[in-house]
């Protein structure tokens, strides 16, 4: 498993989707799934060519939500751009904040105080738990389990969003992190409330697992469907739970040790088959690891400032240079690439959106399967259109 992407290099086109042909009976049907299909998580279109029930071609169509986020970022100052990052992946605004703050901190060599690092980890892991829970909920919704699993997930998500609201003032558009720390400190009451929520999370994951893991319908619909090979996953730049479900051990928290992730003990769950079930299972196990990180971080949370007193907020002009900062966001590798020319605005501001790039292999996973499975395969990728279209 060490030579990903290398073993097939002599076969031209090995990383392209295979060509499927009609079996010659009947006519081909072209269907535009979306942009308002209930399973597309927003405005997204898949142009599908069907031979009976079988998918023989699939082209994703983007851009319905495109607002040129990168151009917006270049027309305003570094700090003014922070709230805009919330709107990329609106399920996980805090990890977006962190990735952007990390890129700017790398650009200017800014240090972050201890307490702020712990708070960042706590918030990022809470974000991961609520994102994975809702993703699994949505996946089951698309499988026909109408409403109930999603409501179980959203009940837990609501508790976490209440924590975000009491700390940052907003449930989803948190705008919390700054270059060199966090905006406000967490009160002892908030820490206590977080401890209580985190203590309740394992019971929720247990319950979720008991209901779902050996559910016959879930197993029949997910196992062996939408398989992604590990060599193709690496070559296609897939990241996050989707990459690890294919059996590739690559977690940026372990590889880069950004922030203070080297201080926590956690495992990286890996899949065996790279099918929908593995993607679901990896997310389930990652929730457990996140809860373990949360417990460790809440135990060691030090006192102190949450903002580096030397950090410059007004008249922030980084010296000329560039930086690429990336984190393990719940959906995959979220990166920000910045070029500074010494002015208050970034010369180039680029977002590396994980859900956009994870869609590269959507066609490969869907080809040959039934049209009803396309909905599930798409749901198992876990995308948010605010980030795909930017």
């Amino acid at each position, binding site marked *: 498993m060490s030579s990903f992407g290398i073993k097939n290099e002599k076969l031209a086109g090995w990383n392209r989707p295979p060509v499927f042909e009609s079996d010659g009976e009947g006519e081909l049907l072209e269907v535009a799934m979306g942009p308002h299909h209930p399973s597309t998580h927003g405005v997204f279109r898949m142009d599908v060519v069907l031979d009976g029930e079988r998918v023989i071609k699939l082209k994703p169509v983007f851009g319905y939500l495109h607002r040129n986020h990168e*151009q917006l970022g270049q027309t305003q100052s570094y700090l003014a751009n922070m709230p805009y990052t919330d709107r990329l992946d609106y399920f996980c605004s805090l990890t977006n904040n962190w990735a952007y703050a990390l890129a700017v901190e790398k650009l200017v060599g800014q240090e972050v105080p201890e307490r702020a690092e712990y708070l960042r980890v706590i918030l990022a892991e809470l974000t991961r738990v609520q994102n994975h829970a809702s993703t699994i909920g949505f996946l089951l919704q698309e499988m026909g389990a109408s409403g109930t699993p999603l409501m179980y997930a959203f009940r837990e998500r609501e508790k976490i969003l209440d924590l975000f609201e009491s700390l940052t003032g907003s449930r989803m558009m948190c705008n919390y992190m700054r270059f060199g720390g966090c905006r406000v400190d967490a009160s002892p009451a908030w820490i206590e409330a977080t401890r209580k929520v985190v203590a309740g999370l394992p019971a929720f994951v247990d319950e979720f697992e008991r209901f779902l893991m050996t559910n016959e319908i879930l197993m029949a619909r997910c196992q062996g469907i939408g398989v992604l090979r590990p060599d193709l996953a690496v070559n296609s730049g897939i990241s996050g739970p989707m990459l690890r479900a294919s059996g590739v051990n690559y977690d940026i928290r372990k590889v880069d040790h950004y922030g203070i992730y080297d201080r926590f003990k956690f495992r990286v769950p890996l899949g065996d088959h790279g099918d929908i079930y593995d993607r679901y299972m990896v997310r389930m196990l990652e929730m457990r690891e996140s809860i373990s990180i949360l417990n460790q971080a809440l135990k060691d949370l030090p006192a102190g400032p949450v903002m580096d007193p030397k950090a410059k907020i007004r008249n922030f002009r980084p010296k000329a240079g560039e930086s690429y900062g990336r984190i393990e966001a719940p959906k995959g590798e979220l990166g920000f690439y910045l070029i500074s020319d010494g002015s208050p605005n970034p010369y180039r501001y680029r977002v590396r959106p994980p859900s956009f790039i994870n869609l590269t292999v959507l066609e490969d996973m869907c080809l040959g399967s039934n049209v009803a499975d396309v909905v599930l395969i798409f749901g198992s990728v876990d995308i948010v259109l605010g980030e795909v279209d930017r």
Partner: protein
Amino acid sequence: MKSVEEIKAAIETAVPGAAVTVIPNPAPNAQHSLLIGAQHGVAVAEFLRDNEELALDYLSNVTGVDYLDKEIPEKVKVTRQVSKTVDGVEQTVDEMVEETRKRVEPGYLEAVYHLFSVAKKHGPVIIRMRTANRTDQVELPSLTPVWRGAEFQEREIFDLFGIVFTGHPDLRRILMWDEFKDHPMRRDYVEPDDFEYEPTAHDEVLKRAQEHKAKVAAGEAVQ
């Protein structure tokens, strides 16, 4: 991991004739990058991916950057014929004059690739390629056959910056619609005049309304 200088040397021995320049990054993170000549782009990319020591099998981020034409003022000494009155007689005399002239350095479009290794868990190695100019010679070799991860991102650069990636299997617009003409991420992009009538125009809307009316009067736009 090897330093950029070592990688440069390794590329130069493996791909003869490849032009590689180290672009230093003055920021504290010191992520220096390598500028690759576009002619050998694919060969260099294949070397970086298949070399056992580097094993850069994971292309994370691809992005475009636009650099406008630069006007550089230069002081030049020029000999010029000047009419002068010498001893009461008007004569033309050669004289050395210092002049500031503007030299135009052509702008270019740049594609930046951030490479990592999943097998060896190191990175990033940053490579860049530049087009000859911003107008008619905007081709770069596509690295999608080497790393599929570039597929959508190169399409995005083609869409928003206008770099044409030769060898890309499916080069179409991705975020803008197919009929769209311009490239919105270019630094000299001008928004199209899509003014809609508003009864009480004010501030910025008023400014746009006036610009629109002037254009209509000049016959450059339709009512």
